[in-house]
């Protein structure tokens, strides 16, 4: 950990208060400092780890073969997309991408359609928050790359929410999540094995 969240802004952000709500009309100026390469690499590494969780979760559900109908179609599409997202981020990281680790998910998450669907909702919402939480830590090139991935996960979130009868887009803004909040959320759903 490079530094703890020490400012009021960070503390509020970590509590879920997004910049959209806080946005105010300030003076325009030209000052600018892009995130460093090291910070960008750390953020991409975190996002890759999250994408690998998604890829493994959906691949496991497809392999288990317990889903039917629209839920099966969703899992199949999401499995393909997340596998490609993980590969994309691995390429973006080049030689800095860590090796993938095996994930041993609880069986009921991928074999019981009801459990699968609710875990997928939680997972996709967490991943959207993870992307939005890391945007400010990405350099321009990485941000341009991630900007093509994040909205697809948001589409997944809306898709699976609709399938389980939840509002596809429940808020006016998708708040940013801290890495710790994402990690806690994944652990809470049993998605880290």
């Amino acid at each position, binding site marked *: 950990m490079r530094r*703890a969240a020490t400012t009021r802004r960070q503390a509020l952000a970590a509590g879920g208060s997004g910049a959209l709500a806080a946005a105010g009309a300030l003076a325009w100026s030209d000052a600018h400092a892009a995130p460093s390469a090291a910070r960008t690499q*750390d953020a991409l590494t975190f996002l890759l780890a999250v994408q690998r969780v998604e890829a493994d979760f959906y691949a496991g559900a497809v392999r288990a073969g317990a889903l039917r109908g629209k839920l099966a179609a969703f899992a199949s599409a999401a499995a393909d997309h997340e596998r*490609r997202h993980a590969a994309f981020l691995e390429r973006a990281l080049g030689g800095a991408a860590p090796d993938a680790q095996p994930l041993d998910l609880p069986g009921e998450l991928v074999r019981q359609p009801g459990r699968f669907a609710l875990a997928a909702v939680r997972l996709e919402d967490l991943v959207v928050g993870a992307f939005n939480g890391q945007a*400010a830590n990405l350099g321009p090139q990485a941000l341009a790359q991630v900007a093509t991935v994040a909205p697809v996960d948001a589409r997944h979130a809306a898709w699976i929410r609709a399938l389980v009868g939840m509002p596809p887009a429940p808020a006016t803004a998708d708040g940013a999540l801290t*890495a710790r909040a994402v990690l806690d959320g994944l652990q809470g759903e049993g998605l880290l094995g």
Partner: protein
Amino acid sequence: MSEVRATTRAQAIATASALVAGLLLPGGARAASRAGGDRQIVRRLLLLEHLQEAFYTEAERIGALTGASAAAVEILGGVERAHVAALRQLAGSAAPKRPRFDFRGTTEADATFARTAVSLEELTVAGTTAQLARVRSAEVLQAVVEIHTVEARHAAWMRSVAGMPPAPDAFDAPGDGEVPARFLDIRPHTVARRAPSFPA
């Protein structure tokens, strides 16, 4: 990261989380300021949000939609109005005049509404995807990313209403975000200096 030998997925993601913990929002290393380029970006995105706001608000006002379209428009109108308000506040004095649009009757029937909603949502998602990496200030970036993914949710939702795959591709390509000329109402609008009088 390469120095760490994580042996489980939980350890691996925990390590990755620790690396970035505390580094987010609207901060990171981006300066909390707004460059001239950001002003143009906000103005461009504001035009797209105005386009959607006007579309859904008109559909709400006419009240001709039924079923899933009617249910969606009640929510989407309010969300797009909130996006417009947030971006106008962000733009401050640089906010453009509210544009006029002509949706050519597409707000009056479920089928044309859903197809048009899909095209407007996709236009906004692609236009925003193209602009994100050009944003320089932390506040603008955070506001834009938090709207971007909501628009992607809307795109998936409206695609579903229109009977289309919600997420047809693994990646959302950037686009020009240009408002279709057919929806721009460029007719001259005059304002009467006084109310007309009618015979009693």
